[in-house]
């Protein structure tokens, strides 16, 4: 089926440079769902909202604006697959659109590289597009499944920066505005034939954000560890996320947690795009799952 919706695919850093499988999966799977993702050439780091936001918000605005302008020049809306990137790209776009003073300031800087932010495009998270029935919707996702992930118990980590703070966000699918007890990701997981699993403190942060993972890794890991304990309590085969940074924190984090706290979980952590890939018949090799710090094997045996 040919693509009805075309987006400039904003990659960010961690997906292409650590989990290339999710990048590959995103492109392949969304094509099957009528979404064409074209590369956003020359895009840079979003830049990391925690780091840059902390140092100087003006730099954050300007750097994010540069990425936005690249898409404006393509006259194409942006789609991305990382909550952190969403925070930078969507929120800066939103702020600049609604705050002239800010926009003028940013354009001042962009002038030095012959760019101008116009505010002519929108920014979307892939997960949002998959759930929005006007674009794809749960049913279409279900229909696209050729290899249902039967019998797999999968928990969802929503992360923070896609949905919080709710009062600033604008989603076509209003279910996404629920920040206390959302279930739309569970619906998407269910659509893949897997069993979504609820657990304590589902909405808690992964602990990596705001530069904390770099500043005080033990502190950051302890937050992740609390979630892993809660996940262990209900027993799941895998944890899925829509943010490569959260994924890094839970995947690599488990190794670090083992080193620092001496506890082992071996809980596979997959980006939803990777899950969707598997469900649409992509092989673990197509997804480079071997790059994950925690082996996905036990999970794969269950579902393949």
């Amino acid at each position, binding site marked *: 089926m040919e693509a009805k919706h075309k987006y400039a695919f904003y990659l960010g850093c961690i997906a292409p440079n650590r989990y290339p499988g999710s990048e590959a999966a995103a492109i392949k799977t969304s094509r099957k769902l009528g979404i064409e993702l074209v590369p956003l050439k020359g895009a840079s780091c979003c830049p990391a909202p925690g780091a840059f936001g902390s140092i100087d918000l003006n730099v954050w605005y300007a750097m994010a604006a540069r990425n936005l302008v690249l898409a404006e020049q393509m006259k194409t809306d942006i789609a991305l697959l990382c909550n952190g990137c969403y925070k930078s790209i969507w929120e800066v776009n939103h702020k600049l659109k609604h705050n002239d003073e800010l926009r003028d300031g940013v354009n001042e800087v962009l002038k030095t590289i012959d760019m101008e932010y116009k505010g002519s495009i929108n920014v979307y998270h892939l997960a949002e597009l998959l759930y929005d029935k006007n674009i794809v919707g749960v049913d279409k996702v279900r229909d696209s499944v050729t290899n249902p992930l039967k019998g797999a118990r999968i928990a969802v980590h929503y992360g923070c920066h896609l949905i919080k703070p709710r*009062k600033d966000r604008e989603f076509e699918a209003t279910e996404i505005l*629920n*920040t*206390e*007890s959302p279930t739309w990701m569970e619906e998407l997981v269910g659509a893949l034939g897997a069993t979504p699993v*609820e657990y*304590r*403190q589902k909405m808690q942060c992964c602990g990596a954000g705001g530069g904390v993972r770099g500043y005080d890794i033990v502190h950051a890991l302890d937050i992740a560890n609390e979630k892993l304990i809660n996940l262990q309590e209900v027993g799941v085969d895998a944890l899925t996320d829509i943010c490569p940074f959260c994924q890094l924190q839970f995947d690599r984090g488990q190794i670090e947690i083992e080193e620092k706290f001496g506890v082992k979980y071996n809980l596979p952590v997959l980006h939803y795009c990777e899950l969707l890939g598997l469900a649409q018949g992509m092989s673990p090799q197509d997804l480079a799952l071997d790059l994950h710090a925690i082996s996905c094997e036990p999970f794969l045996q269950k579902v393949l």
Partner: protein
Amino acid sequence: MAERKTKKETASKKETTATATKQAPAKLAIGEQPAKAKEARIGVFICHCGTNIAGSMDINAVQDYAKTIPNVAYVDNYKYMCSMPGQAVIDKAIHENKLTGVVVAACSPRLHEPTFRTATKEGGLNPFKFEMANIREQNSWVHMHDQEGATDKAKDAVRIAVAKASLLEDLFPKSVPVERAAMVVGAGVAGMQAALDLANAGIKTYLIEKTPTIGGRMSQLDKTFPTLDCSQCILTPKMVDVGRSENIELMTYCDVESVEGYIGNFDVTIRKKARGVLTPKEAEAKGFVGGGCNGCGDCETACPVIQPNTFEEGMKPRKAIYIQHPQVVPLIYTIDKESCIKCGICVTVCGTEKRAIDLDQEDEFVKVKVGTAILATGYDIFPIENKTEWGYKRYENVITSLEFERLICASGPTGGHMVRPSDGVAPKKVAFLLCAGSRDNTGIGKPYCSRFCCMYSLKHAHQLIEKMPGCQPYIFYMDIRSFGKMYEEFYYRIQDEGAKFIRGRVSNILEDPVSKNLMVFADDTLLDRPMKLEVDLVVLAAAVQPAADTNRTRKLFGVSCSMDGWLLEAHPKLNPCGTTTAGVFLAGACQGPKDIPDTVASAEGAASAASIPIHTGHVELEPYFAQCIDEKCAGCGMCVNLCPYSALALIEKDGRKVMQVTEAKCKGCGTCGGFCPGGAIWMNHFATPQIIAQIDAFLLGGEQ
């Protein structure tokens, strides 16, 4: 405002004719300076209002300028014009300078126009020869940092006022008789108290209640703070009195459908919703002597349809034919038309003696005439599930304070056994969340303080400690607002009884999927440590909001509301029961959150205010009605349809069609006058020449 004025005024009343026609003197081309304006002698009096006005503008400059305005014969200023000596200044000046009109530059006419009209009258002029220039509310107070701007604006304001004063005419308020009956809308404790007071003052009172029984919110409560009286015990006597009172015509299960007329003469249409059950009176009217509902309840037992009982906050079932609780007044059953399946079993069991049930009964409309009306429409609980972080409706054991009242009440769904919804087990640890949805500026909750939550939560804590030894209440608060008589002492007592007070607002609640216990997250701001408290039950002291159909009702009576929907009083301090619609008053929580003592007090206030015009027997209406200048009227009749009160009509007069105003119906809005293509409609006190003169004075007069 009309009746406030008339209270102050004693203008010699010339009985005006039923219809009004403007005579020659007003035959003015628009803008043309009438002769009388030229010989007008206006006195201007500038008020300092202490430093309120003098502090932000140059009074002397205004005074010097006023002297230069055409028609100004005298100028003076005084520290407080509204004071007795201040008014004496006006009186004296009128006599000594043969003034024909008075301008006072001071506060808002909405505040002191009556005062100065009286002063003008004392001076021997018609009180309507007075015009006010508002240089406080709309000048000195809003331009505090702009002396020059304020002074210039004051000069213009005076000039504009003088221009109008020069053209003002003698007017005579019209006196209308007041119907010797009153209406109270809403039969909660406020409505009942107001109705009883009116009735006891000998006034026939219609008490309108939308639900099948009177009693309102108070009848849902178990105990009342700080005295811990049983709510029902102190309320039921009143309910019975209301039912018995000769002067009260109790109309339950009724809605106000429409309101016409004005103070003294409101024509109200009431919808009697089809109850499906006949009262003994109605039965008799139908010829079933000795018939009608006697509240035996056989029908209820027989009825097969089960519905949640709203009075019990849905925690108890009721039938399609029901009474809400044993103490209802009147004791007449009601059929819930939505859920009734018309199986007819109730008709059979009711039997051929009573023949009380009429499944095909239809709504009826009743018209009543009243002199004054009191709105007592009360409050609802804010839909607290909108604050998703506390999981109301998501977690079984998170309940509202009103649900708590029913659960702890001996006549409630559990017979007074305090148990939690999930498993019927008595809770050992209970968390009370104060300001749940109140003091919330997110746009989801309510920005205001709901005022009685602190106190009833203290009472709830006391009830737990008293009823269930070993049960520990935790009260999560930001501030305990125990402002009433004996309230702080009550707070002291509950603290002494062992309730634990945690100064922190609960951020969110998580439910244990197995035990259904609740994890309450908060910051003990005094200990400066985040806390995670496992409790069996959470009670949300949910914010309150105006009752569901308040907005509909208030519009029928032409009453305004504040931004959050509470009905707007005429003056927040000096006229809390009045409204901007003469003859309509407010009682209880419809005006803003109130606890029972305040509600009853405001109800008695409203009752007394509403009884004054009725006892006076007549009210004087502002003589602001429209008149037709026959010479100018082309008889096009376009104005006739514009009038919202159908006060205008076309009549034959000396062989031609002209419009005629029925004064009694005209409320003086001037919508007709604003439209008339021929300028043939003269609006008393707001006549076209007068307003044009004001505009000209501002733009053409003055120092260019």
